[in-house]
């Protein structure tokens, strides 16, 4: 009887250990996705993988002053197209850049202005 309960105990411990390892592994994988910039799917043209294609990024401009914008990720992992001249930030939603002047103005961050 003693042996049986010992074996059961070890088995239970092993099962718990496996669950813990799996949970840690899953958490790490999720974190990798959190950190991955959208540009990781570059070249897929915003198809099934949600990212901005380099071809689009190259020609995108602020609809307000028509100058270039920069792809930036904020602390929460959200991506923006930023105009460093006026601080306008245009959000990217579901892989689609929202390039409406009122959106850029609404999300303006003056701390991003350089030069």
């Amino acid at each position: 009887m003693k042996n049986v309960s010992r074996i059961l105990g070890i088995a239970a411990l092993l099962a718990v250990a496996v669950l813990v390892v799996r949970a840690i592994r899953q958490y790490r994988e999720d974190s990798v996705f959190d950190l991955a910039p959208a540009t990781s799917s570059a070249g897929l043209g915003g198809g099934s993988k949600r990212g901005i294609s380099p071809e689009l990024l190259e020609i995108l401009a602020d609809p307000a002053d028509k100058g270039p914008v920069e792809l930036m990720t904020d602390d929460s992992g959200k991506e923006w197209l930023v105009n460093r001249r006026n601080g306008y930030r245009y959000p990217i939603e579901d892989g689609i850049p929202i390039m409406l002047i009122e959106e850029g103005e609404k999300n303006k961050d003056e701390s991003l202005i350089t030069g």
Partner: protein
Amino acid sequence: MTQPPEDITNFVQQQFGRAAADYVTSFTHAQGTDLKRLVELAAPKAEECMLDVATGGGHTALAFAAFVRHAVALDLTKPMLIEARKHITAQGMKNVSYCRAAAEALPFSDNSFDISVCRIAAHHFADPRQYALEAARTLRPGGRLLISDHIGIEDPEFDAFMDKFERWRDPSHVRAYTYKEWQAFLSDAGLEVVHTEDHDRDPYIYDDWTKRIRMPEQERDALEQWLLQAEPRFREFFSIKEEAGRIVSLKSTFGIVMAQKPA
């Protein structure tokens, strides 16, 4: 019948946000023979980059994607872009990008595109002159702009009749511009109109045409009554077909305008 709302941009967004999926499947928008003609006229090359302004169901971007290096599908409404992306990726096209923006304030650097197309949409624009300026700015020298749309009629009475039924059905229909008006908008923007042609589109099937836009039943009936009472000259011009006291179909005038940015 209502006048176009002052905030037409907002109104267009509401209108097409609601009916987005219907525009992917709409026969008029998906199968228009003008699509083939637009590709033919634009003569796209493999290294070129094209812009589809007000892509709607994505049909124009899809038609060009097979011939160009990169196509950008642009629309004012996000639900439309999501539907367009679903439709285009389902066809296996991977060289199309999507972007939400207004036609009058294009989010692209100068000289970005070789080809710029706007199909069945310019009649919704709040400011076609500003759109023409933006199209010209974002086109590279030598680039081609193609507009396929409702075309206004030179005779003001017939033009007013068409304007009335179009806007009654769809209050976001601002105006169908005549070739003369396009000529003025485009030359003011520094483009040279190189070609115009009428496009004989299939008639509107009244039932589908009014339901697709989610016209309230009461308005559908009222418009039908108004069409049934139209003078013979209008009935003839717009091919208004009637069967057992119901409107079956009618026609509107369409055309293509092609312009080029001087090299």
